[in-house]
């Protein structure tokens, strides 16, 4: 630093002696000493004589040495290089952005920079700026789980309490090779807190000394157990007041073993203002009742009251709400023939985590258009009568800008139609606005409104079942005997509303669950199909996921997100039943455009006209069998497999004569019959805007098995396949999707008589698969994420299941 200051002082002196000249200075991000992550872009500002060419000198040694009478702040080692970067302006300045290469091997490398410009006032005719040193650091994910197959490790955010946590770092982070270090698991701090207080205090009681083998070639060799499951999560004792989903921890590898986090040398997982390295999560299902064993973080008070006709409300809130500030509001709208008192399993549960939950009387018998007005009116009534409801206990304690609408069956359609009314401006409310609705969740909804409510035979009231730009979530009951998903009746097909949603959207589909299992009103499950799981198991799944869902959308909770997309077979809330032949959960999770995602192919734009051209412009080489790109619509409206109905079983779209009845949802379907390996290859060099994969976190796509297809029947189990990334040098990393647990689930083996076609298997069920991009780099694949040229989906005996019939859609790169 002293040297830098003296250089600046010297430059200032020169400037004062030669007023026509500018001082020769260099800063990077307005600093002269700094630390920056690999892959980051830094901003160089150089000054010097106006109109002078500027050379950037770089070295790994800061010198200084004297050359031609010039004081050069570099060591002139063999690594020294000199690069022209431009010409100073008339004002004597030059601004240049410089991207630090994304090379994990650069971690802890300190580079020294200076600029060389012309100087007519100096004897040499040249001037050298002050020096700037930049230390490059890698910020890898460290915490995760071992996997039985490549990539052999998954870095994740959320761990259930009691589960082991491991540290894994690939050998491409060459800095670690042969080093002995202390590993700390620290109560999470923000980056700012780390900067202010770098002291390391291990939450386990003591740091753990590890040695990374010299010459390691696999991540398995660099894997260590951090905890066997003893790290504490949120306090789960009855009425603890601790509503956190997870407790955050950061992981630090302290290479100089000094008990301090040195940001230029030590590796850290969790150096972030918002996100910890990992989270130990609670039992999300706890909190269904006000009993000692089932109580959540807060004691809950339930009140029943009415404001008049169809304004009966059952409201749940933390008993101690007076000291809890403003809490989000969750509104529940029941279905036809149901009752507003049938949602205790959600009301008590969510209220015990700090939400106000109001389940209301819903005018469903006339239809879901009328039910939508019940949702709108009851929400407005509650917010307009806070001084009187519950004796005023809620007054001032509801955050009217954070509202969730949950609806069941006709009520599930109603909440989407209610949002449509606000979106269309055809319904006026007094106490909230459309943007206050942060999430809509439809449970086994009917779909009477369709796209716009203008369907020729139904709807007809200009009120679509359309969530538009609201975040949307869908619960599906695959054994539903009422809203049963049979393709012959569009209004009982579940996915239309989901496909219409344009914001972040997700779904959870449960096999063996009936329509009545989603409420707690007793009576029949209203179920039809094999392996029924019943109401209690359904609620055990529901409670955990609904809490994660609202925590993610309302609180921005980070670990909650993991529950919404990781394969149920491998990760699910504590308290949710283990997967089995009966307990099957398929999840979709798609980020919205605002997240900064990159769409490689969503099949929406070019339909069947040119399947060799992806949405991104990538050229597609199709090496699978029977590839068809088109609308995800069971064209002949029954589930019988038919060769000229390639999207058999798909109910995302409807291209029937009811124009725009549902959505315009395109996808691809294809097959591989076991006779050899097959592939679909995207040439990313031909994309309109080529993505730099190091700027993204995950490759995400959704896939489904074709219901009742001969190859699906032959497989009758999860289908797995592999995905490869290949870079310009031909390096390739290949991940089998089965490495993360599960695969693409076979359709629910239901046949409700002949009414929905011949054969076994219900609708074709999408699941979202997300692969962390850095996983493709493990164990010496050498894939350069900054220069990936090909994305290859590979099928067949070498790459997973021998055979199968699949759909593929929504192939994206996501930021989170």
């Amino acid at each position, binding site marked *: 630093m002293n040297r830098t200051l003296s250089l600046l002082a010297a430059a200032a002196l020169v400037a004062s002696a030669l007023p026509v000249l500018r001082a020769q200075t260099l800063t990077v991000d307005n600093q002269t000493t700094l630390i920056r992550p690999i892959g980051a872009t830094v901003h160089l500002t150089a000054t010097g004589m106006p109109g002078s060419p500027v050379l950037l000198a770089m070295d790994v040694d800061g010198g200084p040495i004297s050359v031609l009478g010039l004081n050069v702040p570099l060591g002139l080692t063999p690594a020294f290089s000199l690069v022209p970067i431009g010409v100073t302006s008339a004002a004597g300045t030059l601004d240049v952005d410089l991207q630090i290469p994304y090379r994990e091997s650069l971690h802890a490398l300190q580079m020294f920079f200076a600029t060389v410009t012309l100087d007519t006032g100096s004897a040499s005719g040249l001037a050298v700026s002050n020096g700037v040193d930049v230390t490059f650091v890698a910020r890898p994910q460290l915490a995760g789980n071992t996997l039985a197959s490549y990539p052999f490790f998954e870095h994740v955010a959320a761990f259930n309490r009691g589960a082991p946590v491991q540290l894994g770092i690939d050998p491409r982070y060459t800095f670690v090779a042969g080093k002995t270090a202390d590993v700390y698991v620290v109560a999470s701090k923000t980056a700012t807190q780390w900067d202010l207080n770098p002291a390391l205090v291990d939450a386990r009681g003591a740091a753990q000394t590890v040695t990374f083998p010299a010459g390691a070639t696999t991540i398995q060799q660099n894997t260590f157990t951090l905890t066997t499951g003893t790290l504490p999560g949120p306090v789960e004792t009855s009425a603890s007041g601790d509503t956190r989903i997870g407790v955050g921890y950061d992981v630090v590898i302290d290479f100089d073993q000094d008990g301090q986090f040195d940001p230029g040398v030590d590796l850290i997982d969790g150096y972030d203002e918002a996100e910890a390295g990992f989270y130990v999560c609670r039992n999300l299902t706890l909190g269904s009742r006000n009993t000692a064993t089932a109580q959540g973080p807060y004691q809950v008070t339930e009140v*029943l*009251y*009415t*404001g*008049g*006709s169809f304004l*009966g409300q*059952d409201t749940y809130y933390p008993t101690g709400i007076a000291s809890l500030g403003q809490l989000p509001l969750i509104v529940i709208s029941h*279905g*036809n*023939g149901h*009752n507003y*008192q*049938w949602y205790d399993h959600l009301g008590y549960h969510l209220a015990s985590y700090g939400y106000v939950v109001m389940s209301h*009387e819903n*005018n469903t*018998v*006339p*239809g*879901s*258009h009328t039910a939508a007005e019940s949702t709108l009116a009851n929400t407005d009534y509650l917010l307009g009568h806070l001084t*009187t409801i519950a004796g005023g206990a809620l007054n001032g304690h509801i955050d009217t800008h954070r509202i969730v609408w949950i609806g069941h*069956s*006709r009520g599930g359609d109603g909440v989407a139609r209610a949002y449509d009314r606000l979106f269309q401006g055809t319904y006026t409310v007094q106490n909230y606005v459309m943007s206050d609705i942060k999430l809509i969740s439809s449970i*086994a909804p009917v779909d009477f409104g369709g796209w716009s409510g203008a369907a020729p035979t*139904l*709807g007809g*009231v200009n009120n679509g079942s359309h969530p538009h730009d609201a975040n949307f979530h869908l619960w599906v009951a695959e054994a539903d005997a*009422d*809203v*049963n998903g*049979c393709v*012959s*009746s569009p*209004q*009982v097909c579940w996915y239309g509303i989901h496909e219409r949603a344009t914001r972040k959207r997700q779904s959870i589909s449960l096999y063996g669950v009936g*329509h009545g299992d989603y409420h707690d*009103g007793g009576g029949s499950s209203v179920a039809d199909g094999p392996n029924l799981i019943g109401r209690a198991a359904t609620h055990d799944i529901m409670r955990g996921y609904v809490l994660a869902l609202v925590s993610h959308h309302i609180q921005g909770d980070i670990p909650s997100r993991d529950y919404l997309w990781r394969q149920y077979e491998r990760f699910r809330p504590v308290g949710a039943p283990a997967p089995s032949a009966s307990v099957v959960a398929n999840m979709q999770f798609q980020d919205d455009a605002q997240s900064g995602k990159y769409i490689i192919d969503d099949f929406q734009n070019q339909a069947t006209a040119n399947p060799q051209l992806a949405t991104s412009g990538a050229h597609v080489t199709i090496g699978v069998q029977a590839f068809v790109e088109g609308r995800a619509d069971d064209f*002949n*409206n*029954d589930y*019988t*497999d*038919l*060769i*000229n109905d390639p999207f058999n079983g798909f109910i995302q779209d409807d291209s029937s004569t009811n124009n725009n009845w549902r959505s315009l949802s395109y996808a691809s379907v294809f097959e591989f*019959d*076991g*006779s050899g390996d097959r592939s679909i290859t995207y040439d990313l060099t031909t994309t309109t805007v080529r993505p730099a994969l190091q700027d993204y976190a995950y490759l995400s796509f959704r896939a489904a098995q074709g219901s009742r297809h*001969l*190859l699906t029947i*032959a497989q009758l189990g999860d289908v797995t396949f592999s995905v490869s990334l290949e870079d310009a040098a031909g390096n390739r990393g290949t991940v089998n999707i089965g490495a993360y647990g599960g695969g693409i689930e076979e359709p629910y083996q239901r046949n*409700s*008589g*002949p*009414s*929905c*076609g*011949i*054969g076994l298997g219900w609708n074709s069920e999408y699941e979202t698969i997300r692969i962390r991009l850095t996983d493709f780099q493990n164990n010496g694949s050498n894939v350069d994420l900054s220069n990936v040229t090909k994305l290859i989906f590979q099928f067949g005996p070498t790459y997973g299941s021998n055979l199968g019939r699949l759909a593929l859609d929504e192939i994206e790169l996501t930021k989170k």
Partner: protein
Amino acid sequence: MNPTIRNGLCVTAALAAVLAVSLSRGNKAPAAPANHQFTLVSAQRFQLQQPYRHYYRADRPLVDRGWLLVLAGDGEQLVRRQVQEPVLFVGNQTAERINVGDQSGKLVVLVPGDLDLATAPIFLGTAQLPEELVQAKIDAELAATTVTPPASDEIASALVAGTLECANDYELRQRAIDLVERHSPEEKDLIRGARVPLIK
């Protein structure tokens, strides 16, 4: 898979699909039971000081008078579904169902207007959403039904003397719930939920 075998299976599947089309299709809305005859158990006129909106037809008329009826029928026909259900008509008017009645077979309903029970068949029409019904459709349903109006002695025994005077539909519905409690007492959640404290 042998291509020949595969093609053969595809043909088989295609034929099966053709056959399936001739069978009943999907989760169609429940069909209206032909000639389902309700018995009129109780009938009382009502009059309101403050009208309410009748949501069971597309024009949503305001209602300040009508009939509070108790009907007896086949509970199987009253099971609630989320899909379109057979709409309950009384004459040329749609009826609002207060309770479900699938277990008791007893249905409490509100029927707007001054209709003459002696000329108004009480029937389940085709399955659709009441909120979409216009008068022409309702008239068509009435014209198509073969259900006969209640007999005069049935009306006489069901008729409750006097007009039920209420300030508004909330009060009216409370009286309707009293009837639910009497005729369909197993619907405890509905009854309890209707009698929660009214916030002024």
